[in-house]
């Protein structure tokens, strides 16, 4: 059974999004996604300042098995990226929701996240 924190929002393509108290959002991939991928060997994140549309590819996560695109859960501007993943991409396997975060965004529409899955809906999605 996957670990699905109730305070997060989720996408069909297995990203999670956390609404921070300052109105920014943090994005990563779910525990289910990291487990399906297996050993993560490389994470490519966008440049700080990049402007992303909702659903746009913002990076790539690679495992021994496969490479998968990452999709922006909401539109926004990249405020920060997790550069620690360059040297230690396996952090995503170990801590998908905390240390394995990938980017922080200033969302274009602060309400956009509410359209995403909650934990219960995502649990149903991954069956």
């Amino acid at each position: 059974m996957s670990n699905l924190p109730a305070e997060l929002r989720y996408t069909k393509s297995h990203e999670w999004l956390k609404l921070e108290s300052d109105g920014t959002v943090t994005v990563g991939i779910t525990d289910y996604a990291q487990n399906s991928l297996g050993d993560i060997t490389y994470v490519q994140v966008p440049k700080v300042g990049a402007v992303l549309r909702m659903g746009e590819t913002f990076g790539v996560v690679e495992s021994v098995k496969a490479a998968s695109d990452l999709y922006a859960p909401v539109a926004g501007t990249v405020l920060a990226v997790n550069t620690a993943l360059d040297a230690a991409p396996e952090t995503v396997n170990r801590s998908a929701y905390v240390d394995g975060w990938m980017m922080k965004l200033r969302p274009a529409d602060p309400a956009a996240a509410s359209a995403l899955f909650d934990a219960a809906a995502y649990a149903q999605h991954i069956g």
Partner: protein
Amino acid sequence: MSELKRTPLRDFHAAHGGRLVDFAGWEMPVQYRSILEEHKAVRRTAGLFDVSHMGEVDVRGPAAAEFLNHLVTNDVAKLFPGRVLYSPMCYPEGGVVDDLLVYMRAPEDFFLCINAGNIEKDLAWIRGQAVGFNVTITDRCADYALLAVQGPKAAEIVQSLTGAKLGLVKYYHFTEATVAGVPCLVSRTGYTGEDGFELYHAAGEAVALATALWAAGRPRGLELAGLGARDSLRLEAGYPLYGHEITAEISPLTAGLGWTVKFEKGVDFVGRAALSMEKEKGGAHQIVFFKTGDRRIVRAETPVLSAAGGVVGRVVSGTLSPILNEAIGSAWVETAAARAAVLSTEGSLAVMIRGEKVNLQLVKPPFVELKKSST
């Protein structure tokens, strides 16, 4: 998954957290905890692999040695009881049917270990080639299970369960002995580049043997290792995998396995004429090994480009070396392009990864120092 074949250890794997996948029609553990961690455990301590999907064949009879020397490219006449030989088995055109291990138990009693994905094809091929030789070919695949213990601690672990003096069993030699009370063919071989043993035993004893090895090995740092680590270990060691570096179209000479093709053995073995011509003329392609200095894996089937940008081949194996922390792989490329790259006359070979050019640094394998040769 109900149609997949299972080894006697399928439930052992499931109970130990093995992630079971379809591998050549077999339900096999690709990993238990982590491919990267299992790989490192084999290089640093030891790993236990179930490779019972591999096929076993008995070749017996007065003409067994003569037949095998006709069948394979390496020189079977050099064997003596207790000795193991690695060899490709080729088609008349020079491509590879399979690569295998030949065990000589007695002058008229040999045993072959073949790849799981090739069992039916190999048996049909071997039986076809055996016509006219006084030999009996027996399919023993269902009778045997095979466990491999690999890594610097492998000898200590296996020795703790047997009275046989393993120090006397050199690399590519074997003995028959009981391990944890289970009669085994104890072979000092492996597919990792580390010291270690492959233990052939009756399928019905596999759970007992695996349980005993696991109990004896755990305190010594043994980890369960899946087929994912087996593949990255063999690639780091520079060993070919059938269907990748060697195929029906890629000959042993093209694959850099010239040392296994014994033209001088005085036998008109299958493929000799074609391989002889390839050797004389030089093959149009060759297998090269590469690293990139980058963590992005260069996947099999990726086109290989010359410095000028033309396609000169394709990647056949690619992974991340957990020891070097960079992408490693092998590629089938035009010989002229490989030579130019080695001489640096025209710059490096390269691949495109998601639109970005990545140069291939050609390397003579192994990628890491191997400790397989025991004393």
